[in-house]
């Protein structure tokens, strides 16, 4: 198979060894790379009983066969491990150029195992791999760590690093790269911290061989032009190039999709006004900050020159705005951007962080937490200063409330008690993202049934068929606007397709955002075939996605998943809002929809893949 090296780099931090290992074609034909490779490595190497912070947990950084192709969106890469938030298989994708450098260094993955005696970082340059002392970087934020590593190794290295939150085991700690992109959700930054690994620097000089270079060149030109043209056709304030995903607040507010006041309200007029996309460029001085080869350029670099929230750096994405702004009722756009960047420095996921802070605010409102517990902070809804200060306390794991909130809302509510679990908007230990199940019931089904990375809006983005009219016509999902978004009809089938679609995207390692501007499954399949020579049909593509989903399910069973976990959704799922387009809507019938999903998926009534299903996707030998 082309476009892979048949080689991974194994870093064992316990014994200080770094060595390359051969991987047979069969693994790529089954699982492609990226998220599929992460799952395969866990299946092969982390047996039942392995826990997230155990040295036996494998932390895998994997690009896929798309890296190095110079196609818009082909800069993604993934990291995977057992999550410290929900204790199951997890993976997350980031961008910038770290994955491309792994590929150009001659590897399809870097697998980290063990635990170092003292803080270290790893440097990889083609065949050279070394473990180096990171003592002077430990305790520093993630950006200082990246600068420190580049100061020693050189600017041409691409780095991943963690900040204090990763070092101190915050269960939703991120891994950052290039000060702009983040391995978010699922807490892989804490896994990295548990291994005393502060960062990895990679640089490569090799060019991968693809199956049909002329076809890749043709596809790149045609696809890149189409995506750029379609973006230009959007209104200025909805162009990805100008405001990135932050524009989504304008699309989602009238649909009832925003999370407001810990998911209790349907409207926040002042927030909608101040966080409007047109303010994004004006107030934050946002400029495009594109990833390599990308024509959409959704990342932004911001500069706030004056005031208490002045900063220069990453501009917040939609999820960050929604959670840190709308969900906490903070209407100061500069403060939200600043707090998000603060979270980035400490390396924390802003989705979980926004839910955690909103949960604490609701505890404060209900007098479950008082000023005695909150360092004297007034956690009233919308208190900008308190929100920012709480980010600092959690990021540094300050004794007391900051430490508790770093455990996430599940553990925090179990420890505090007093009914606070009723407003912990989490499932399986991971906080729910900024796609409101009341706006489209399929989101609730996705959160309950996703196996790739806990309840996750980007590992089964079926909400996008409603909230931004994404289609997968090649797999039978067309424009659904004429249908009832509060119906379970076709939900199980569509949800399954999006789970498999996400696994294909995250295993070939392409960017899902391209689909917002017209990237199709045909584009993806054609590119995979031209790169690898696999010669896949649409059915083959689906089968691969299905296979990866089933493997992730087997991993989850291995690590302790039980059927009841899929049904233990947040109590707030069944609490309606009183106004707006989703007024009165709650996903009644969710339990039956979960059972429908099991059936569509080829799982038995206990949610376990049947032997016939595993045989169908070629996984009959993978059961523990």
């Amino acid at each position, binding site marked *: 198979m082309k476009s892979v090296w048949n080689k991974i780099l194994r870093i064992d931090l316990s014994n200080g060894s770094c060595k390359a290992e051969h991987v047979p074609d069969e693994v790529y034909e089954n699982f492609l790379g990226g998220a599929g490779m992460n799952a395969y490595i866990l299946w092969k190497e982390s047996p039942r009983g392995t826990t997230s912070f*155990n040295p036996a947990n494998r932390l895998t950084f994997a690009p896929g066969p798309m890296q190095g192709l110079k196609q818009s969106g082909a800069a993604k890469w993934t990291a995977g491990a057992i999550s410290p938030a929900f*204790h199951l298989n997890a993976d997350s994708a980031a961008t910038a150029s770290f994955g491309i450098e792994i590929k150009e260094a001659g590897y399809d993955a870097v697998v980290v195992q063990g635990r170092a005696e003292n803080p270290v970082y790893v440097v990889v340059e083609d065949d050279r791999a070394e473990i180096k002392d990171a003592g002077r970087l430990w305790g520093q934020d993630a950006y200082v760590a990246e600068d420190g590593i580049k100061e020693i190794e050189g600017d041409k290295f691409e780095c991943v690093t963690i900040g204090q939150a990763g070092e101190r085991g915050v269960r939703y700690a991120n891994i950052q790269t290039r000060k702009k992109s983040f391995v978010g959700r699922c807490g892989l930054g804490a896994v990295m911290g*548990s291994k005393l690994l502060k960062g990895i620097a990679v640089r490569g000089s090799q060019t991968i061989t693809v199956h049909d270079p002329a076809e890749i060149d043709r596809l790149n030109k045609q696809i890149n032009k189409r995506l750029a043209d379609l973006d230009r056709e959007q209104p200025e304030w909805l162009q990805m190039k100008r405001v990135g995903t932050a524009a989504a607040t304008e699309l989602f507010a009238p649909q009832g999709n925003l999370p407001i006041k810990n998911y209790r309200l349907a409207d926040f007029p002042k927030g909608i006004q101040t966080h409007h996309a047109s303010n994004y460029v004006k107030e934050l001085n946002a400029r495009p900050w594109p990833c390599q080869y990308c024509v959409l350029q959704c990342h932004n670099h911001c500069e706030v020159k004056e005031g208490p929230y002045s900063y220069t750096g990453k501009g917040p994405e939609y999820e960050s705005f929604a959670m840190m702004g709308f969900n906490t009722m903070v209407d100061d756009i500069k403060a939200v951007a600043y707090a998000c960047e603060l979270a980035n420095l400490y390396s924390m996921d802003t989705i979980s962080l926004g839910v955690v802070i909103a949960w604490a605010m609701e505890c404060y409102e209900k007098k479950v937490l008082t000023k005695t517990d909150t360092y004297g902070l007034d956690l009233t809804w919308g208190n900008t200063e308190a929100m920012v200060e709480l980010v600092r306390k959690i990021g540094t794991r300050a004794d007391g409330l900051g430490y*508790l909130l770093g455990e996430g809302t599940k*553990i925090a509510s179990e420890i505090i008690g007093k009914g606070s679990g009723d407003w912990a908007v989490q499932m399986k230990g991971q906080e729910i993202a900024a796609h409101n199940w009341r706006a489209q019931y399929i989101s609730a089904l996705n959160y309950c049934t996703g196996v790739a990375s806990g309840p996750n809006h980007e590992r089964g983005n079926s909400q996008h068929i409603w909230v931004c009219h994404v289609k997968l016509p090649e797999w039978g999902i067309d424009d659904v606007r004429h249908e009832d978004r509060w119906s379970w009809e076709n939900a199980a089938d569509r949800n399954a397709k999006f789970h498999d679609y996400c696994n294909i995207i995250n295993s070939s390692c392409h960017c899902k955002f391209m689909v917002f501007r017209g990237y199709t499954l045909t584009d993806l399949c054609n590119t995979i075939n031209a790169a690898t020579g696999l010669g896949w049909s649409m059915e083959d593509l689906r089968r691969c996605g299905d296979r990866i989903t089933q493997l992730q399910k087997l991993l989850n069973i291995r690590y302790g998943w039980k059927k009841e976990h899929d049904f233990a959704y947040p109590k707030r799922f069944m609490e309606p809002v009183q106004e707006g387009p989703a007024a009165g809507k709650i996903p009644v019938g969710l339990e039956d929809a979960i059972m429908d999903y099991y059936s569509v998926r080829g799982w038995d009534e206990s949610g376990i893949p049947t032997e016939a299903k595993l045989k169908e996707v070629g996984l009959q030998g993978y059961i523990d």
Partner: protein
Amino acid sequence: MKVSINCSEYEFHKEPKFSEIVEFVFEMKKDDPMIRKMREKAGIKHILFVLNGRVVQPDQYDSLKIQEGDDIRFVLPFAGG
């Protein structure tokens, strides 16, 4: 065997009971004014432990065994706990 307690690594004999870890933590933190005060006011059961992401109840301390690489955290209670 090695286990992690609040992100620092400690060495124990093979498969200690969870109650031994609890005692170890209290001994290690005996001079911590907050923990001392908490023990005096409310007793040790009000200092809560989390094992591999799951809250451990005091009545489980004697039955739970620890394994190599386990992650243990102790959290001071809030709001009455």
